[in-house]
């Protein structure tokens, strides 16, 4: 394939070089590292080498000619399969700055900023709270069977599956999703599911899985893991931090059985799930040990009420216990 041999930059302050002498002729073969020409820079006459092996097709620059850095000097024919180590990038690709990952909390200590938002939320938003214990035995056995067949990367994680169930339930109960702004409720067709993620230094961030309603359960599963990894690396997008329409928090995983969240303004609901644990279950007159989890809902009374909230939790329970539907 054609390869353009260009005037190399040999120092920060060099922007052109004078081609003094060619050491190669059209038709010659060139090996990597071979000196192919001499170039005069402001400092001295310097040998320049080829970084590719191949055949010289054409010499573009004439001896004595001044050529700008990166401008072509010659054309080589190099063999295709030569694994070019530096071939994976474009040499003129510009570098851009990382996105600021916490626009709202810029310069402000994260914990403080969240504290302020919570205080505002507690004051302004009339919360109502509901709890429901959900059995997970069915889900667990389904998961064990599924994961046994799936590859490592595709393993289904319980927190992701539970959030997936919530996402589907929200389709039936849209009043739990969206924003409350300037005195009125603004529903949202998208479910941007905010996920509370604890960082190593203890601060909590709530980035959202954007448009989670469009995802398949494996896509959702991968999006969930990707979000956690990127949160910890601090490489989130602004939109993921601002445009959440509902939030789920499973901070219970280490500590308490139940977690009552405070709604993240301007959202209208937050669902919490506590620790997965074994409890005595009474079913058809017998008690047996079974996996359970406590789901809690804190929602905005200006948008929905306890009755709707209870049906919403019930819908989540139905989804969790019908894993195939996820």
């Amino acid at each position, binding site marked *: 394939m054609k390869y353009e041999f260009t005037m190399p930059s040999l120092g920060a302050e060099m922007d052109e070089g004078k081609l003094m002498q060619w050491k190669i002729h059209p038709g010659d073969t060139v090996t990597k590292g071979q000196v192919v020409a001499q170039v005069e820079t402001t400092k001295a006459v310097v040998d320049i080498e080829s970084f590719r092996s191949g055949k010289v097709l054409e010499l573009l620059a004439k001896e004595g000619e001044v050529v700008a850095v990166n401008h072509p000097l010659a054309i080589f024919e190099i063999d295709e399969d030569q694994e070019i180590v530096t071939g994976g990038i474009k040499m003129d690709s510009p570098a851009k*700055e990382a996105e600021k990952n916490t626009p709202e909390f810029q310069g402000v200590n994260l914990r403080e900023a969240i504290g302020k938002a919570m205080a505002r939320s507690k004051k302004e938003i009339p919360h109502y709270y509901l709890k429901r214990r959900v059995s997970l035995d069915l889900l667990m056995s389904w998961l064990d069977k599924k994961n046994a067949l799936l590859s490592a990367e595709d393993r289904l994680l319980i927190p992701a599956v539970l959030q997936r169930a919530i996402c589907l339930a929200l389709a039936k109960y849209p009043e739990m999703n969206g924003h409350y702004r300037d005195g009125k409720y603004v529903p949202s067709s998208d479910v941007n599911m905010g996920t509370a993620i604890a960082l190593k230094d203890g601060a909590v961030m709530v980035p959202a899985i954007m448009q989670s309603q469009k995802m398949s359960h494996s896509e959702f599963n991968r999006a969930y893991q990707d979000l956690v990894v990127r949160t910890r690396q601090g490489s989130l997008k602004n939109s993921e931090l601002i445009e959440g329409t509902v939030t789920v928090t499973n901070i219970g995983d280490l500590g308490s059985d139940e977690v009552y969240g405070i709604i993240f303004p301007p959202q209208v609901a937050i669902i919490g799930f506590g620790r997965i644990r074994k409890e005595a279950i009474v079913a058809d007159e017998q008690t047996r040990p079974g996996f359970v989890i406590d789901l809690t809902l804190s929602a905005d009374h200006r948008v929905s009420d306890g009755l709707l909230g209870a049906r919403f939790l019930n819908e989540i329970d139905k989804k969790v216990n019908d894993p195939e539907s996820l």
Partner: protein
Amino acid sequence: MDTSMQMKMLMDMRRVRKMEEVCAELYTKEKIRGFLHLYIGQEAVAAGVINLLNAKDNVIATYREHAHALLKGISSRAIMAELFGRIDGCSKGRGGSMHLYSVENRFFGGGAIVASGVPQSLGLAMASKRLKERRRTVCFFGEGAMAEGVFHESMNIASLWHLPVLFCCENNLYAMGTSLMRSQSQTDLVKRAQVYVMEANRVDGMNIFDVVEKTKQALEYIDRESKPFFLEFQTYRFRPHSMYDPEKYRGKAEVEKWKTRCPIEALEKKMKEQNILSDEQLRDMDRQIDQELRDAVIFADSSALEISSDLEKDVFAPMKDQAYETHL
């Protein structure tokens, strides 16, 4: 050295050689800027010495440090991203080629001031001795550093206070453009070290077997006596001092003569004689290295620049456990 050790040495030397060649190319394409000092020709020293260390030992080197940084544990990705000046660089793009750091890998940098690392290695050794951490401390520098005042001061203190440092002088015959004969009255560097009542030895820096053997002896002495040891590695850099050096100070013939003693080719020949190395293995090794470096270059180029609003971060370390409020 057994077969696997020789294979590891060959792999490491070739990884360093290829990485430096890639850096040279990327410099000509303006992806890498600033100063760039390549290690091509001297690979046996860094590979031989550092492969005898373990993860918790301290290494402090100079601005010609890519090999030491890579072999002490900094990934080629983190190094390449640093040379590209990106946030995922091992120094977050703040250091560049001359200031690669990794506290996790106990690599305390390059340093652009000749011999500035030599006294610091004394402190690292003293701290390890006092905290009973049993870390070895290895300090790399060029023969040019031996003309610096602080070098004399440090050697005196190292010997006086029995500080267990392995001083590795990479004598490549030229301090930038000044040859050894024109910079040192006493060119027998081993004699120079012995003036400080310090154990010293000379090593053929182009022969990995000599490097390993003599370094092992030095490390055993240090572990036993907890005293410093000076090794002079006679080696040579095949490329100019840095990218913009017209190389008027040495002849082409001299360079070609030393190239015939390339440490990598020497090891390959030896291994083939023991028929523990086939061309097929060499091709595999090259493919593996090319893949690693290709991935490192793509990683570096896709890594972002640090957010400019973070410019003033990390000038000072935050005051964590202070009992009083400060206005920092």
